[in-house]
């Protein structure tokens, strides 16, 4: 990921509520799969493995977030496990077609979480993070960002 992309995802995570953060995880997953395709095309095996590792770590997070007291977790777990095995296969066989199989699965799941997030009005998980609003205040081509609750000390006072 570039620094810009890291900032973008950081921003999204900080501002997410509990469901939105899951959508961000899916987006991060897609990003790493993209990077692995590119690395394989460039013939860079180390970079390819690294990107696959990163994608695998996202799956690990999603798996570990599951609460097995609720029945949906079982199917989700089975799908994540399948994706994990595909990633492993794609590393040792150096063939990214197995990664394509995971993208189909993950995009279906992402769809559902996007819709769940739209109807989840709970607060962002990170308290005291500033709220950022963008608007076309003065010009159609000039987007201004306004920060509310901005405190450079973030509540810490020595």
């Amino acid at each position: 990921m570039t620094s810009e992309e890291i900032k973008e995802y950081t921003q999204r995570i900080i501002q997410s509520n509990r469901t939105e953060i899951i959508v961000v995880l899916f987006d991060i997953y897609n990003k790493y799969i993209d990077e692995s395709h590119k690395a394989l095309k460039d013939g860079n095996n180390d970079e390819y493995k690294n990107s696959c590792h990163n994608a695998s770590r996202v799956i690990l997070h999603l798996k570990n977030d599951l609460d097995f007291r609720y029945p949906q977790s079982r199917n989700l777990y089975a799908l994540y496990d399948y994706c994990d095995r595909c990633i492993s296969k794609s590393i040792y066989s150096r063939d990214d077609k197995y990664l394509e199989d995971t993208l189909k699965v993950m995009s279906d799941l992402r769809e559902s979480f996007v819709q769940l997030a739209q109807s989840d009005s709970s607060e962002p998980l990170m308290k005291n993070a500033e709220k950022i609003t963008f608007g076309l205040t003065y010009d159609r081509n000039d987007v201004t960002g306004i920060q509310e609750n901005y405190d450079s000390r973030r509540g810490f006072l020595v």
Partner: protein
Amino acid sequence: MKINNNISAVVTNKQLLRTEDSLTAAMQRLSSGLKINHSKDDPSGMAISGKMHTQIKGLGRASQNANDGVSVIQTADGALSEVTSMLQRMRELSVQAANELNSPDERGAVQKEIGSLRNEIDRVSSDTEFNTKSLLDGSLDTRVYGEHFSRTYVSESVTPGTYKMTINSAAEQASTSNATATALTGTVTAAQAGAMKINGVGIKITEGMSASEVYESLRKGAEEASCQISNEGDPLKISSNYYGKSSSVEVVFGNEGLRDYFGFTDLKTTSYGKDADITLKTEDLTTNPPVFGFSKQATVNTDGNRYTVTDTNGFEMEFLAQNDVVKDGTGTVISGWSTGDLDIEVSDIGPMVLQIGANESQNMKVRIPSISSENMYLDEIDVTKAGGPDRAMANLDKAIARVSEIRSGMGANQNRLESTVMSLDETDENMNSAVSRIEDSDMAAEMAEYTRYNVLQQAATSVLSQANEIPQTALQLLQK
């Protein structure tokens, strides 16, 4: 467009994240189920998985661990299937190279392909992993400790303990010295010119060649014959690269003049190597304290410096013994080791421990031996040398058998784990149905579509089932 960077929040988050690095390391080990820690580690609690709810039901976790174990074994088996194909291809190539109609160039091309396959096997060995955990590079192999040996392999039935043996005499290479014990000297005359062979490899010595030129031709021919010769200027000695009584050096001269030039007495001389002489130290359970080790029925077989100890019940221990003694002119050892006591300590660490029950003692060990070209002696394969193709086929047959043995052991473990998953799911009353294992992309597509709608239909519980990520841990997923 102004992009706002909440640097202070990011900095604060980074500080928070640092304290959680160690938590993350523990989280990754424990939550993947691939435990190296003692089974007393408590898997429950918020620290483990970034979950916001504190309770992880013991049985749910155990079922997941067993399922992860099956995935590990399946992944390793898939990779080993590819390794088997490569070994079989290497064997085909060796058979092809054994055909004496092949020119040196053709055999060179075959050896090149063999070399590429060997490198690919090593790549698969280091790259095969599940959840970022390496599987085939020895990470999940039983750890064996000791000096003066390497390339160790122990079968599943070798129990932890110290196994001892004494190497009374090491394996020796076949070697032939000339009767005169002199170095090559003088220009080759017409009467001395002719052809000779070392292990079937022809060398032409022509009239007018200097001793240096003869030495060079001899050295090149010896190399092709899998032999080495003594240094120029030293008494002539031709030794096989291989150890043990199966190694041999055969020198044949085309005429007596050539024989005399080299200082030999016979037109044909054949010498053989010697096998090692080993005494196993066997157990004695009657003494106090009892001495553990090899049973009285264990036997050792040697192939050069490669020793294999076998016993009943599938007990097999194989390793490559050190044998590299260098002596000076008076016969005093300057460096290396070849004889003496060997203590082989087989530990009980290395294999993957899966917590498959709610209690401490309910765990299962899954072991995957190291697979590499070195462990399978593929580095010895050179089909361009005399005798190379035959040796290659012998090594490859052993390697193919070894991989097959490992796969069948893993298959047995997989069966045990799968039945564990089923029985755990039956006893857990909150589970309505067993976790399915998706085996192919069609099944995955069906399940994904079904789950998509199911998740939306039961929105509230779907959120509770999945939306348990903590931002601090999510941020750790971001890296360059």
